């Protein structure tokens, strides 16, 4: 899980073009949206692309993203549970 979390941090920084951020700046339990990292609806769609591209997991309903992308930790848990 720890390894996956670290990998996700790097992938998210790249996918969302968070130029000024380093993996260590992100707390795995911080909310990604709203008052946390301040991501928005387009970022959520970018994360859906990331899940499919890197982990082969397809999300059909963007609404499902709200829970999955709550934090990096919740993302990692979702990937672990759904990756084939």
């Amino acid at each position, binding site marked *: 899980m720890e390894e996956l979390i670290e990998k996700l941090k790097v992938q998210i920084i790249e996918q969302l*073009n*968070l*130029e000024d951020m380093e993996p260590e700046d992100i707390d795995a339990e911080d909310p990604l949206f709203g008052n946390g990292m301040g991501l*928005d*609806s*387009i970022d959520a769609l*970018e994360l859906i*692309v990331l899940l499919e591209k890197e982990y082969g997991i397809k999300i059909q309903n*963007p609404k499902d993203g709200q829970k999955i992308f709550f934090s990096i930790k919740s993302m990692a848990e979702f990937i672990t549970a759904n990756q084939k």
Partner: protein
Amino acid sequence: MAGRIAVTGIGIISSIGNNVEENHNALIRQQTGIGKISILETVHKDDYVLGEIKLTHDQLIQMAAVDPEKAWTRTALLGIIAARQAFEDAAVTVGDLSATGLVSASTVGGMDRSELYYIDFLSEARHNKYIDSHHAGNSTEMIAEQLGISEYLTTVSTACSSSLNSIIHGARLLHHGIVKQVIVGGTDALSKFTVNGFNTLMILDPEHCRPFDESRRGLNLGEGAAYLVLEWEGEALKAGKPIHALLGGYANANDAFHQTASSSDGTGPFLAMSGALKKAGLQAVDIDYINVHGTGTENNDLTEGTAMKRLFADKVPFFSSTKAFTGHTLGAAGSVESVFSILSLKNNTIFPNINFKQKIEGLGLSPVTEVLSQKLTHVLTNSFGFGGNDSSVVFSKWEKQTSQPARAIATGMEASDEASGRESEVGSVSVFINGIGAVSPQNTLEPGYFPENIEAHEERYLQIQKPDFKKHITPAKLRRMSKIVRMGIVAAKTAMNEAQVHEPGAILTGTGMGCQADTEKFLNGLIDSRETLLSPSPFVQSTHNTIGAQIALLLANNNHNLTYVHRTFSFESALLDSLMLIRQNEAESILLGGIDEVTEESWTIKTRIGFYKKGAVKSLQLLHDEQTGSLAGEGAAFFVLSNEKTEKTYAEILGTKTFFRPENQNEVEKEIAGFLEENHLRVADLGLVMQGYNGDRVFDSIYENLEEKLFAKNNTAWFKHLCGEYDTASSFAMWIAAGALKSGLIPEPILRRNFDNFQNRPVLIYNQFRNVNHSLILLG
């Protein structure tokens, strides 16, 4: 001149019919045009349904009866078919043409061909003819040529509100006496680019869309074109023309909430609808029916419904979305639904919102779901687009005016314009440049206006001196912005800081090619990945109004926000619109800008058709370079315009004019002389003439001839050795000219011929693109 604007012609092609009658019949019979994909070649053939026009490219060429050898895009073909219907319906005569304009709208322009041939564009010659039909203004020019229009033409691109904005611009042209009649509307063909773009946003419904229904899941894309002919009621009656309807009022506002999502309180839509009512001199209760934007996305319908409740309270009029018939035709949607609104008015019929079953929870609004006969006097139509760009237009029933004009139709605000031609308005309100900002291949951001040291470039194309963007834009916002957006924002902020204006009454931008880097990124991704795993960000940012929208977002500015995208007319159209808005007292201050970027790919492609020089060019010796073509460049120049002269004032803008495909050099001279005369000036009165020499000898000869004859006794200058050639380079020239007029000095590096003392006399900027698009800007 009569005081009411009449619609005297309408034309349309959509997935429910190839003309007005077929469209009307389908609406009455409740026959949708949305179905299985059979024309567009896409891997999503079985994933989605579309509102396709079931005619192939060749069939459309036949229907349009045009020369098949020309570089027709599907967008242009749909455009010419619909525009010609409107043109014929209004019985436009050859005699009228000298005072007829064309304002068209498109979002993706010639993308339907570009996405097929893009790989060839980069290396093979076989589809080269389509390279120059990609830009959004191309379809407008093809239509203009077919119809014989050259007096005024331009193209608007503000995503899905585009064609309502072309109606708005057209109305202003009439009010300002620029044209006597104007064809307005828009055209957009389906493309893989848009299907995949909306797919990345996950707002495409795989089933038939269900606008305003609780179960709605997204939109269905469609394609189409629709045009209206607008002219003064009095003129139309004099010519014995039947009148379809009156254009009552209109407004454009910006939601300033998010690049793609709309606000939960419906600010933008509310301002657009209420603004249109105000302009029409109507109260909310006067509206009998709304043809809503109603895309069927969760976000749009909720926001639009909320805004309707805000405006109409518990008396929301009859409303319906017709998008379940046609699909969302993007840049054409506003004019398609304007034609439907006019049909509703004429026939006292409301077309149904098909596929509706259940009200949206919490909203409690039910659209009309059956064909409904209802007396209609005033109809409102909405179109909302990316970048929070929201527009509304009111059409009113035309009835012969009796001695007592109906209160409801009297356009109070425009009463003073009624009898006026251009004469009475020019001179009544002056327009001043009170702040300037430029990001360019020179160090133009440094304090003190003109850089002390000129950068001598030796490259294949000129690129901007990159400012420290982080000083101007926060990292969170910066990360999604491509270069063109960044440089636009920095130039805009510089101009606003200088003028100390932070709430401009309108934000008007011009860009010939728009966000090229984002467009290329999405297009390449689409081709490489065979339409899978695409990122939404470049698609969202690829719309032409992104720069204006991002500025509105940063400023939280809800005002008028338009983007013009017609090659080297782009900046001039935005400038003309600024002059009209200020002179008609619709805005006191305006943020105006011209922006274009060069990319390696766009440079490569256009170099292959001879536009640009192939090798490195010594920029300062540009005119001695032996290679064919011009030197490509880029830049952003912004201005704060105001109706007040202050101590910061740089210059007054006296006027601008564009002209299209002049027959010969004599006509160029005649146009220039005529423009000066309109402004009560002679050539001898000019303190400086700045011309757009770009190193392309074929076309530079036009400037040379003028310099030898018409301007033989003027100070003359050039500027593209400093910024390179790009569609909105005249904005950089205006930046230089403004500074020259303020300082009283012509910067040495631009001077070609020093004939006499400058003495702050007027400056004329003349620019042309390959002898097609010619433009003039006059500062004093």
